[in-house]
């Protein structure tokens, strides 16, 4: 229904124009705005009498008016005082409103919030209840997006603790108020999004998810459980992505701005410079300390117990196997990570440990994950026995046996005491198996026990290292519940380095190198270089190199003073490839004394710690040995990392015969499917951009038949003709083409 409007009237009817003018000079256009506002009020009253009617009557549509007023509400706060409430009221009819109008009202509210007419909590408290109840999918998507982006923008400058707290409370109440329906899924979704974007990183957000895990609806439960299992990885990935993106090459931009036309380029440059500066600042900023959700959990023992008893053990819960597996996975993660005691979990798992059970490898992984060194060995023993009986036999398929052995190894690496010698010796026999997967799995078990419990093995299986250390009494089986004595690795190296430094300083000052140590002076020195500056860094590492060169010196001075030679590991490594146990044993007591002295008498400054780290890295004796490599690998696998079904299945894959196609596909996997030279790529790009070709290229591409005639003529010519034409060519070149470029 468009009607023709006169030129003057058009100016009036043009809301965009009026909006533009009114924004620049609000007082002058107040009259016009008032008129529009009264029009809005009339149309609003009309709409409210019948919300489902389409409101676009006449020339001006209601949606346009709403948009117009929302844009100018900031400039006319007196007139539009009731406007936000009106919109909220209209939006309460969201089920009947036209979708167009509904979306417009939502975005108008967001606009009002961005212009600080209403505050975030009002907006969110309006949108969240609608998000939960509306049947329209598109509206839900819109609302979700708006809610998330509003929370993000509110928290962009500084964390809005009060806002976050109120919204978190709203979401929490949403979960607790209605446990049966899927409404709670929205709190899960919003919280997960906020967690991923590192806007909410506190225990309250984790609490919401905990509540979601304990709800009664399967979707909500799995949403919560998935968050705990994958939320942190998602967050890390998102952080990596955001740091990768928007790499701005300022030099390139500047160059381009110089070449191309002037205009808005300058503004762009300025913006880019700001981005670069911001990034730089971000790079220098300290890394935010983000705890994983599993660590922020309050009362993990109670949570694990309730989860297990409510959803898994409860015979009334009607969860699918997948959901149950996810919950079990979470429970076992919690048990493994926090070293919890949930005894019924192990007996529950017992009945699922048969090769015919669906996704049994997941159950095996869950069992391994739930094992830690405080689980009583006699609880685990029947489980291991059952795995051995059900999975590991000559009769069973090789993949099954490999998976069983692998699972046993994973369990025993966490609780070595759960194994008895008869079973172990029996299992180790499988390393003679013909199948490669079984073989490797059995070898893994063997090498594990060579390190953690060599007595259980037969003598001939123990290997050299284990036998030697057993004889020396160095290797002792750790008893149940025994904890390792904490110590700082490489502290001895640090102490030696410090002594060295001091000695050098004294020598430089002309004092006897081994006079009584002036503790205070020493301490004062330490405090002076408390911080490690960037330029300090190179100095200290240079200082360390000095130590190595002066190694001989130290030894001499030591022997002069009748002291025992300090264990100089770097030197030992250069002389003998393996460690000499005897020498180490001699030094043991003295070393222990020293360590205690250093740690008890001084406070390690950050500079010290840095030095310590450098020393650790460079003392490369132990890292050469294969067993320590393995140990390092084990240590590198963080306790936070989960064991998945793939870990258990990995050994079995070795025994699987791959077909030729699979092999080819595997070999090709990391390569581009089509190889092309750089020139060819460039040419293709040029073609696709529609650029022309050079004369040379045209000549090369010319149809062969067309060139024949000319070539024939060339062959028949006499030598004189040839010379003439060549000369002519040379001359033409000099002249600059047939026409010439001079005169």
């Amino acid at each position: 229904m468009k009607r023709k409007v006169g030129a003057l009237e058009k100016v009036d009817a043009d809301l965009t124009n009026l909006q533009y003018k009114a924004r620049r000079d609000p007082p002058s256009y107040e009259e016009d705005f008032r008129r529009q506002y009264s029009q809005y009020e009339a149309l609003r009253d009309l709409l409210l009498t019948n919300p489902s009617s389409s409101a676009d009557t006449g020339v001006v549509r209601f949606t346009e008016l709403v948009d117009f007023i929302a844009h100018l509400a900031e400039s006319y706060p007196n007139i539009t005082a009731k406007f936000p409430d009106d919109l909220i009221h209209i939006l309460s009819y969201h089920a009947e409103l036209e979708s167009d109008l509904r979306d417009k009202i939502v975005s108008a509210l967001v606009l009002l919030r961005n212009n600080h007419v209403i505050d975030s909590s009002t907006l969110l408290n309006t949108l969240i209840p609608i998000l939960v109840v509306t049947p329209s999918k598109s509206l839900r998507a819109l609302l979700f997006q708006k809610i998330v982006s509003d929370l993000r923008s509110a928290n962009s400058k500084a964390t809005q603790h009060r806002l976050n707290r109120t919204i978190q409370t709203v979401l929490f109440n949403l979960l607790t108020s209605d446990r049966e329906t899927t409404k709670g899924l929205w709190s899960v979704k919003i919280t997960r999004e906020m967690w991923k974007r590192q806007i909410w990183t506190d225990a309250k957000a984790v609490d919401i998810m905990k509540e979601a895990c304990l709800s009664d609806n399967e979707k909500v439960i799995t949403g919560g459980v998935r968050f705990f299992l994958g939320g942190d990885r998602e967050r890390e990935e998102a952080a990596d992505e955001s740091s990768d993106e928007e790499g701005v090459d300022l030099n390139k931009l500047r160059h381009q701005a110089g070449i191309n036309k002037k205009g808005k380029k300058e503004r762009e440059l300025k913006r880019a410079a700001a981005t670069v500066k911001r990034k730089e600042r971000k790079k220098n900023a300290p890394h935010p300390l983000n705890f994983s959700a599993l660590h922020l959990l309050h009362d993990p023992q109670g949570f694990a117990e309730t989860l297990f008893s409510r959803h898994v053990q409860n015979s009334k819960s009607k969860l699918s196997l997948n959901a149950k597996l996810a919950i079990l996975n979470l429970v076992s993660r919690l048990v493994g990570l926090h070293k919890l005691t949930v005894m019924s979990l192990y007996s529950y798992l017992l009945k699922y440990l048969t090769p015919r059970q669906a996704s049994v490898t997941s159950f095996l992984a869950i069992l391994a994950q739930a094992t830690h060194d405080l689980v009583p060995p006699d609880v685990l023993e029947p489980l291991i026995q059952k795995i051995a009986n059900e999975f590991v036999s000559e009769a069973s398929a090789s993949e099954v046996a490999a998976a069983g052995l692998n699972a046993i190894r994973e369990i025993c690496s966490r609780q070595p005491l759960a194994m008895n010698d008869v079973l172990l010796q029996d299992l180790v026999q499988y390393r003679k198996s013909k199948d490669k997967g079984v073989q490797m799995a059995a070898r893994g078990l063997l090498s594990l026990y060579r390190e953690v419990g060599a007595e259980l093995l037969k003598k001939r299986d123990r290997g050299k290292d284990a036998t030697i250390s057993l004889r020396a009494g160095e290797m002792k089986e750790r008893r149940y519940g025994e904890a390792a004595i904490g110590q700082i690795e490489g502290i001895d190296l640090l102490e030696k380095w410090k002594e060295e430094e001091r000695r050098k300083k004294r020598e430089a000052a002309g004092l006897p190198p081994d006079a009584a140590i002036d503790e205070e002076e020493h301490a004062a020195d330490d405090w002076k270089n408390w911080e490690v500056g960037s330029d300090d860094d190179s100095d200290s590492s240079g200082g360390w190199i000095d130590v190595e060169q002066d190694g001989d010196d130290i030894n001499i001075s030591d022997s002069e003073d009748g002291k025992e030679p300090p264990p100089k590991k770097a030197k030992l490594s250069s002389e003998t490839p393996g460690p000499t146990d005897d020498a180490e044993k001699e030094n043991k007591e003295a070393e222990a004394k020293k360590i205690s002295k250093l740690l008890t008498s001084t406070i390690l400054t950050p500079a010290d710690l840095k030095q310590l780290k450098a020393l650790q890295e460079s003392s490369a004796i132990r890292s050469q040995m294969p067993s320590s490599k393995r140990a390092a690998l084990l240590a590198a696998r963080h306790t936070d990392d989960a064991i998945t079904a793939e870990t258990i299945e990995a050994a079995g894959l070795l025994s699987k015969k791959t077909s030729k196609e699979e092999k080819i596909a595997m070999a090709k996997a990391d390569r581009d499917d089509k190889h092309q030279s750089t020139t060819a790529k460039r040419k293709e790009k040029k073609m696709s951009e529609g650029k022309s070709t050079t004369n040379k290229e045209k000549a090369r591409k010319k149809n062969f038949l067309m060139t024949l005639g000319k070539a024939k003529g060339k062959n028949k010519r006499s030598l004189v003709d040839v010379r003439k034409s060549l000369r002519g060519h040379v001359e033409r070149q000099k002249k600059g083409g047939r026409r010439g470029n001079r005169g």
Partner: protein
Amino acid sequence: MGSSAKKKKEKKKDFQKPKLKVGKAKPKAANSTDTSFKAKSIALKQQSLSTNAPTVEAQCAHHLALLSHKSETQRRESLAYLTTAISTNPPGLPLPQPSSVIIPTVQRLILDGSNGVRQQLLKLFQSLPKADIPSHTDQLLLHTRAGMTHLATDIRIFALDVLEWLLEAAGDDVVSCAGGWVKTLKCFLSLLGWQNDATSKWSAVKSAGKAGGDSKLQVKQMNTLAAFLKVGLIPSQVVVPVEAGTTFPLWHTEQHMLSKRSNPYAHLNLFGPPRDEESEMYEDREDRQRVFHDRAEAAIVAGLEQALKGGGELGRAAAQLRRVVKEGMADYHGEDLEELSTQ
């Protein structure tokens, strides 16, 4: 270009003839479009195959449906049909379609973009029996107000026409329906550009020309406002003669009878949303006077002064309006003085 064997082959491929085989389905052309579709149900509208001509009722219903047609001619024609159908209806018989069906459907055409449609609409309104109007006043008034604030000047003028008709047909209901008094007054004030806010700055020039459009429009607005105020403020002359003799034992029978108005308990607002001062019903003349005094009188008086200075047609209209205001508010001031004297 195009010299390589591969490219040639590719080109050739486009013109290859598909091989036809006996007993096989014919291969589909490359540009054939799949026209099949799936539907849960297919509804066929029934075709009326009766031989006799449709009744007037059916035709009216049909034309009512056509009022939302996109062609303005069609809309106008339908309105015209309805007008003739109503006006040719013999008195005593019910209308071909009841007013309660016609009015809600046609009222949104007040805001219609086409002038012809609107003029026809006014004719239709005027042909409707006056007794049917009061029950639809509030809806009609809503649309009228939307029209009065409309961007387009001719719609604004037309809305004034409608209001005049409405005042004539159901004046009492217009001023006493929910929101009818205050909101309409506010609407007039903003149309005339007479704002009663104290905050208005001296620099903001009261642009008489722009605010009310041309002076012709402003004259019309003032006239309509005068009519509106007359209905609202001046008591109707018809005084029910009290015949004491005939109804001797009964006093105030009127009060005890069932009300003849539609929806007599509307002022209780039993089912609607809570009302504020603006959308409240003001059924008494005294109430209206009070609200008028509080909200509009000062602005109108100030505006009138300016208009009177202008003289001409505008001045004449302003003088008329001032007379109405004076007459309507005469006894109110008196009350005020009385109150003052008693205090």
